[in-house]
């Protein structure tokens, strides 16, 4: 394996530093020049002006394989992840068939290995077929080659309190965690698609009130306290959820939470303004919220109440979005734009420094998912999972330039704060000069 010598990168935005990647680990770090000449084959990467961060970890990705390979595959999703600076992703279970058995989990795991661009960790379903009633084979999925530790019925809420309680208790045996899609179905049913408020009233769209998320988060943190288990809140979207999380963490309840890039920037009013309104590109679950919620989520991410940024990358074939708004598929792309967006929203605003970005996009998600080889600090001996970011060159998003199979890109035409230049997975470059190797 070729050694990689990264010259002049700024770890976490600090002083220019050389990093030598050898045998899958960071072999040497020095603020003075490292002479790479000793090895016969050294690839030198000029990283002057670039920020070095540990490889990003996404707790929440939809890779659509098996079942909807026309929208995304494990391979194309891995490509999008690498381009976005990720070295590990957790692939949600709502595929067809659902990842609710050891065999299904191993298939996704193996497809990820075959693609070889990022570590693909399947998320197991909490309940069989995402049905919300009977527990899936949680233990077998954990014991499988895929080593599943995160379980989620994402796309649907584990609404039955008894089922949720049992799942939380059961995964304690092997240190698993349940990631909850918090949506009380009696308050926000399957057609709910617009934040409940003045705009949903004006547009005549079924409302998705924030309280439908908050009551589940509140219930789940109480269940976590009662069972002594760990619960993770997927795609937190409201200020009310932030309040509950803040209270629960103060109580010492084992709860973690993620926020998506889109909930950190995009707001409900886009449903009334872009293209005259009702543009399904902006249909996502949970829905885009008002600015007050966005502000609360940013603050919570900065102060640690929310632990992680997770993309909820949700590719969809064009024809699944070309329906009336209520009928169109939920979700938007996120892998390629997550870091540039966090740079805009959190770094440029001073809410997070690059250490903070590494915490919420790498270390914390790796810890939540129990990934030992990911999320480590940039230290000698750490796995050589790195991303190089150019903070001076914004990303101008062109939907057609995406390596994802899908085009449901809400960022098209926007200029985001930074761009990903290179990604290294255990010392091997997956992306150089912003393009797949």
């Amino acid at each position, binding site marked *: 394996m070729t050694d990689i010598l990264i010259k002049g990168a700024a770890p976490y935005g600090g002083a220019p530093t050389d990093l030598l990647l050898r045998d899958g680990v960071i072999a040497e770090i020095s603020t003075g020049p490292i002479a790479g000449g000793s090895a016969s084959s050294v690839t030198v990467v000029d990283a002057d002006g670039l920020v070095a961060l540990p490889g990003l970890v996404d707790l929440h990705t939809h890779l659509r394989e098996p079942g909807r390979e026309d929208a995304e595959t494990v391979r194309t999703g891995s490509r999008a992840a690498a381009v976005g600076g990720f070295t590990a992703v957790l692939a949600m279970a709502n595929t067809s068939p659902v990842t609710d058995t050891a065999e299904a989990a191993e298939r996704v795991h193996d497809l990820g290995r075959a693609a070889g661009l990022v570590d693909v960790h399947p998320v197991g379903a909490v309940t069989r077929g995402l049905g919300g009633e009977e527990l899936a084979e949680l233990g077998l999925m954990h014991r499988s080659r895929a080593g599943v530790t995160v379980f989620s019925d994402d796309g649907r809420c584990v609404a039955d309190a008894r089922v949720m309680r049992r799942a939380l208790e059961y995964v304690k045996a092997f240190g698993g965690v349940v990631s909850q899609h918090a949506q009380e179905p009696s308050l926000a049913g399957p057609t709910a698609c617009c934040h409940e408020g*003045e705009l949903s009233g004006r*547009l005549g769209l079924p409302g998705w009130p924030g309280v439908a998320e908050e009551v589940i988060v509140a219930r789940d943190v109480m269940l976590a306290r009662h069972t002594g288990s760990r619960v993770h809140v997927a795609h937190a979207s409201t200020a009310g959820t932030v309040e509950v999380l803040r209270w629960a963490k103060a109580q010492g309840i084992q709860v973690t939470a993620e926020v998506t890039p889109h909930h950190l920037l995009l707001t409900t009013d886009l449903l009334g303004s872009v293209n*005259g309104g009702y543009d399904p590109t902006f249909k996502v679950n949970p829905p885009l919220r008002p600015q007050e919620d966005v502000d609360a989520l940013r603050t919570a991410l900065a102060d640690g109440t929310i632990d992680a940024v997770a993309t909820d990358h949700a590719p969809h074939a064009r024809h699944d979005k070309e329906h*009336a708004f209520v*009928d169109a598929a939920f979700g938007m792309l996120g892998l390629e734009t997550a870091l540039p967006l966090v740079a805009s929203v959190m770094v440029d605003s001073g809410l997070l420094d690059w250490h903070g970005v590494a915490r919420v996009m790498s270390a914390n998600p790796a810890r939540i998912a129990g990934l030992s080889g990911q999320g480590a600090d940039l230290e000698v001996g750490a796995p050589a999972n790195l991303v190089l970011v150019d903070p001076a060159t914004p990303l101008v998003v062109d939907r057609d330039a995406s390596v994802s199979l899908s085009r449901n890109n809400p960022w098209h035409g926007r200029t985001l704060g930074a761009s990903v230049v290179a990604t290294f997975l255990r010392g091997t470059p997956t992306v150089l000069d912003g393009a797949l190797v």
Partner: protein
Amino acid sequence: MKRHLLSIDDVSADDAATLFATAAEMHDVQKRQVKKLPALRGRTIINLFFEDSTRTRSSFEIAGKWLSADTINIAAKGSSASKGESLRDTVLTIAAMGVDALVMRHPASGAALQVSQWVDAAVLNAGDGTHEHPTQALLDAYTLQRRLGSLEGRHVAIVGDLTHSRVFRSNVKLLTKLGAEVTVVAPPTLMPSGVGSWSAEAGFATAYDLDEVLPTADAVMMLRVQRERMSGGFFPSAREYTVGYGLTRDRLAVLGPDVPICHPGPMNRGLEIAADAADAAQSLVLEQVSAGVAVRMAILYHLLAGDDA
């Protein structure tokens, strides 16, 4: 006039005046033996209905035929993501037949607007989900204006299931645009979400108590209440709804004989409107239907008769 009629937002007060003047001429045509004008000869109008509606579809069909257009009705099935054809494919297929106008009814809010971005034909929204029903509002305002003279300063009460009503959404926009003072009345569970800030900005009033509103009303528009809403927990029983929000015989007496009563139909007699009120001399229900044809003729004429420029 804009190219499409998707929402009352597309209609200025001047446009409405033009449409009403033309509709008045069309109304006279309805009384002739030969109910035919050649204005849309050679034009093809497709009534594309993803949701049943005999009355709106027939009204558009007659309007088109009296203007000599070729009108074709297509009953389409709606479909959701991952199931069957996308809405875009459905409408592109139909538009490819060489269509000048699509009159579209769809159970999803915003559907007509989306379709207008995909096809070359003029799109007329004949009701999109719980969003808008602009031709209904135009015929309601036309009918009220014929009865009341100008709507300027007149107090119109809109009563019923506002949350699920496209008729309300279009009417509140148009009536306020024409200078009327509008009060919308419903129990809190049937008020649209965010109505407080919306009404403040858009300049209409809201009320929970119908009996406080009726004494000052110059016109009353009753909306249909679907009995299914009871099972959704929006109100406890039909009886309780009628007592609180129905136009009962007692309330009819409060209104007096000169206050016109509108209802877009179909009516639930005995629920939101008593038979005495529905059949009262001041009831405009049948006039609304005949005005519907005239107003839709006017709309089709102004959207389709001229050049495309």
